C-alpha cells in the first residue's frame, strides 16, 4: 500500500465518465473521502453509483478528471501497478463476481493467495471470516450451490479477509434479509471503528436512515447532496 499516512483515501477532481455508447454516467464529480470515514452513496437506479465504485478500482477509466485512491493516481498509473491498487481495497461487487469453479473457501482464500500469504494464515483467516458472515458450514459449496444472499456474503467475506484500508461495497445487502443485513452492517461498523474507510453504495433506506453517516447522493451522474450525517433522503 502506498502512502498509508495520506489523510485523503479518495480524492476525485472533476471526474466525468462517458461510456462508449455515449451514456454519461458521471458528470464532473468532486469528492474527497478521508481515512476512517463511513460514506453511503445513494441515488436512484442508473444514477451512477456503480460507475463511481468501478472508477475507484480502475475497472473503468475516467473520461476526464483526476482521481487518487489510496495514494495511487488511478488515471496515470502504469498497468502493472493496478493489482497493487486493487489489493489495497476490499471490493464487494454488485454482481458478486465469485469464481464459479472454486468453492466458497477457495474463493475467499484466493484474495489471500494473490498476496502470497502463508498457508496457515489463510486457513485461519478464511475460517474466521466465513464464521463472521455465517457460512462456515457451506465452505465446500460452489457458488452455484448457494442462495443469492449466501453468494453475496461470500463476496463480503472475500472483501474483508485481507483487512484492507478501504472497503468499497456496491449494494452489499441487496439480496439479504433485514436481519442479516444488520449483522453485516454491524461488522462494517466494527471494521470502520478500527480505522478502515468504508464506501458503500446502497438502496436500503432503513440502513442509511438508521446509521446517520455521511451520505453522498448522486442523481444523473451529479452529486446533488453531501451531508455529514444524513438520511436516505427520499420520502415515499
Amino acid at each position, binding site marked *: 500500500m502506498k502512502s498509508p499516512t495520506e489523510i485523503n483515501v479518495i480524492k476525485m477532481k472533476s471526474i466525468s465518465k462517458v461510456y462508449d455508447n455515449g451514456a454519461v454516467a458521471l458528470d464532473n464529480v468532486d469528492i474527497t473521502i478521508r481515512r476512517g470515514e463511513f460514506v453511503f452513496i445513494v441515488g436512484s437506479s442508473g444514477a451512477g453509483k456503480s460507475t463511481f465504485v468501478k472508477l475507484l478500482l480502475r*475497472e473503468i477509466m475516467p473520461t476526464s478528471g483526476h482521481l487518487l485512491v489510496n495514494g495511487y493516481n488511478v488515471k496515470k498509473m502504469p498497468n*502493472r501497478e493496478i493489482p*497493487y491498487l486493487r489489493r489495497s481495497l476490499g471490493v464487494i461487487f454488485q454482481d458478486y463476481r*465469485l469464481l464459479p*469453479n472454486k468453492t466458497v473457501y477457495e474463493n475467499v482464500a484466493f484474495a489471500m493467495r494473490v498476496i*502470497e500469504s*502463508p498457508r496457515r494464515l489463510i486457513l485461519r483467516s478464511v475460517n474466521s471470516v466465513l464464521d463472521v458472515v455465517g457460512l462456515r458450514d457451506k465452505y465446500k459449496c460452489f457458488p452455484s450451490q448457494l442462495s443469492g444472499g449466501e453468494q453475496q456474503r461470500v463476496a463480503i467475506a472475500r472483501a474483508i479477509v485481507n483487512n484492507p484500508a478501504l472497503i468499497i461495497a456496491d449494494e452489499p445487502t441487496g439480496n439479504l434479509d433485514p436481519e442479516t443485513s444488520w449483522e453485516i452492517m454491524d461488522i462494517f461498523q466494527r471494521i470502520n471503528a478500527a480505522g478502515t474507510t468504508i464506501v458503500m453504495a446502497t438502496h436500503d433506506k432503513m440502513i442509511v436512515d438508521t446509521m446517520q453517516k455521511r451520505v453522498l447522493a448522486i442523481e444523473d451522474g451529479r452529486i446533488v447532496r453531501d451531508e455529514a450525517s444524513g438520511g436516505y433522503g427520499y420520502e415515499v
Partner: protein
Amino acid sequence: MKFRTTEYFIKEVATSLKRNNWMSLASIGTVTISLFILGLFLMVVVNLDRMASTLESQVQISVYLKDDITKEQTEALRQKLNSLQGIDTVNYISKEDAMKRFSERLGDQKYLLSALDETNPLPNAFEITVKDPQLVKTASKEVENFPGVDTAVYAQDIVEHLFDLTRLIRLIGLAIIIFLAGATIFIISNTIRLTVFARRKEIAIMKYVGATDWFIRWPFLLEGVVLGFLGGNIAAILLRLAYMALTQKIYDMMTFFPLIPLYPFLTYITIIIILSGIVIGALGSVISIKRFLEV
C-alpha cells in the same frame, strides 16, 4: 514467487483439469490428433527423402576401358579414380562379369546370346558412384579424359528424371510438413483459445481482486504444458505403434521397400512431437489469455 505459491499453482492445475474435465479431454484429444497427423506425415516425408537419397546415390557411371590396356594400367586407373574428389565407390567389372550380368538381364531372351558364338564383345569397365549425384555429369566428363578410358556413360535421361522426381518429392514433402505444422498450431491454439474464452470471466474476476498477470498466467501456462505433454505423449505412442505396424506390414508384403529402421528414428520423432505439444500448449495458453487480462 514464493514456494507456497508454486505449490498452489500446481494444485490449481490439477484441480482445474479435474473440474473442467471435458474441456481438458477435448483439448487433449485435439492435441493428440493434430500431432499424430503431423508426426505421421513427418515420418512419411522423412522416409521418402531417405528413399530419394538412396535412389540418387545409386546413379552410376560406367567407365569402359580400352581393350588394350594392361593390368598395371588398370590398377593405376583405379587409384586415380579412387583419389578423385566426390567419388564414393569404385568397382571393377571384368568383361566376363559384364556378360554374365547381361545374360541375366535378357531373361527369357537369353537365347539371343547364342548368336554371339561365344565371342564376348563387352569391354572391361569400372562402375563408379559419386557422393553428390549432381556431380555425375562433370565427373563422367573428367573421367573420359583419363588414359586407358574409352568412354564414360551414365543413364542421362533416367538421372535427370530421377532428379526431377526426388526434387518434387522433397518439395511437396516440405510443403506438406510446413502446412501441417501451421495447421497443427492453428487448431491446437484455437482449441485452447476457446477453452480460455469459456473461462474469460474467471480471469477478469481474478484481476479484480488484485491478481497480477503472471499469477493468473502461470496456472494456465502449466495447464497448457500438461495438456500438450499428455496429448503429445499419446500421439507419440500411437505414432510408434503405427510405424512399427507399418514397417512390419511393408516388410511382409514387399521386402524390397526398406523403411528407416525403428531406432533412433522413433526416438527423434517422439521427442519432436512431445516438445511440439508442450510448446504449442504453453504458447497457446499464454497468447490466448492475453486479451482477457486487459481488465
